[in-house]
């Protein structure tokens, strides 16, 4: 699994990254987690408001920080075959 956090490096993006790491650990997943700060690359994902969460190249949340449980559910859904 490949997780990307899109954001300008603000507090919200750090919170989101924390949720993603914790969710992945809870589910026993070992994804690659990458943070993308470059606004041009962020625009390439069609995201216009950060932070955003990208799982396996699909934007699942943009423009808000989802709760830790929501991130875990999204990871679980993405990990299900």
């Amino acid at each position, binding site marked *: 699994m490949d997780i990307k956090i899109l954001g*300008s490096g*603000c*507090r*919200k993006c750090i919170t989101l990254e924390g949720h993603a790491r914790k969710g992945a650990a809870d589910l026993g997943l070992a994804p690659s987690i990458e943070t993308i700060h470059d*606004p*041009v690359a*962020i*625009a*390439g*994902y*069609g*995201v*216009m*408001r*950060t932070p*955003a969460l990208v799982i396996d*190249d*699909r*934007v*699942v*949340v*943009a*423009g*808000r*920080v989802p*709760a830790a449980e929501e991130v875990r559910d999204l990871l679980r859904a993405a990990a299900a075959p």
Partner: protein
Amino acid sequence: MSTLSPVLQWLRTSRPGHGTLLAGLVAAWLVLYRINETLWEALLFGWLGLDPQQRLSETLRFFFYDTLKIALLLSGIIFVVTVLRSYLSVERTRALLAGRREGIGNVLAGLLGVITPFCSCSAVPAFIGFLAAGIPLGVTMSFLIASPMVNEVAIGLLFSLFGWQITLIYIGSGLVIAIGAGWVLGRLRLERWVESFVYDTRLHGQAVEPSPGLPFEQRLQMGAEEVASILQQIWPYLLIGIGVGALIHGWVPTDFFATYAGRSNPFGVLLAVGIGIPLYSNAAGVMPMVQALHEKGLPMGTVLAFMMSVVALSVPELILLRRVLKPPLLAAFFSVTGLGIVLIGYLFNALLV
């Protein structure tokens, strides 16, 4: 969209603890706001025994009073606006703007810029997203100018510090500048000065609406988180702004600005905008300064122009936008917007008493 029905539904279904917590917070807010003035007078002049006639003690009183007042106002405004705005999104705004002609498009973009949830850190992704969706350059510019200039924090603070007339004037003139500057920039046909990759950007992936069908309780939580995150972000600016405001309040003689930078001084507005552009702050930080400047006789048009230039144009924004705009367009953007602000300043100095 009815905002009341989710509130009622939430009150019916939420656990009792949450409703009580919210009611308690609202009550605490009201009490603090109410006793703010008496509190600091009692503490500083009564308990500490400072002399109210002394400049230093009056400066201190202004500082503490204004800090608490603005912190309260900001928390309240940001909370309410975030909850309301969670029903809107940049994505929806873009969909509304797509396919609009210039003119109507500029007007709509200005209006949407006021209400769309947006932070200047997302200016570049939004700029690319708008242009890639085929929205004209000038219309996009109207959005990018209106968004920081006429934001909810500025509106709320102006309203509580200066009253509704000044607030309406500020909103109206901010919109006129955003619409006008965007239209002019569009007419100038500056598309070739946009970095070429912008038009080549392929938007892979579907645009995601941030919060469709989110339960009301989560929207309230978003509001609370936004308050915390904005206050954490801006408190240094806020304290510096209030500090400078307090110094002006305590030490600058009454009518100082009326004498030296009053209406009769033709360079007043130009000077204010010239100082305002390199200054980087947001509406919250600049407001206490603006209030103190006006109190000491700086005319309202000059005050508004100063505030707009601080909030709408800044060096960090210049650096951010340089990623997507080539220098000639960047220069045009700054000078057209700056010129609009200067004109508005002179206009209101001539009109307002």
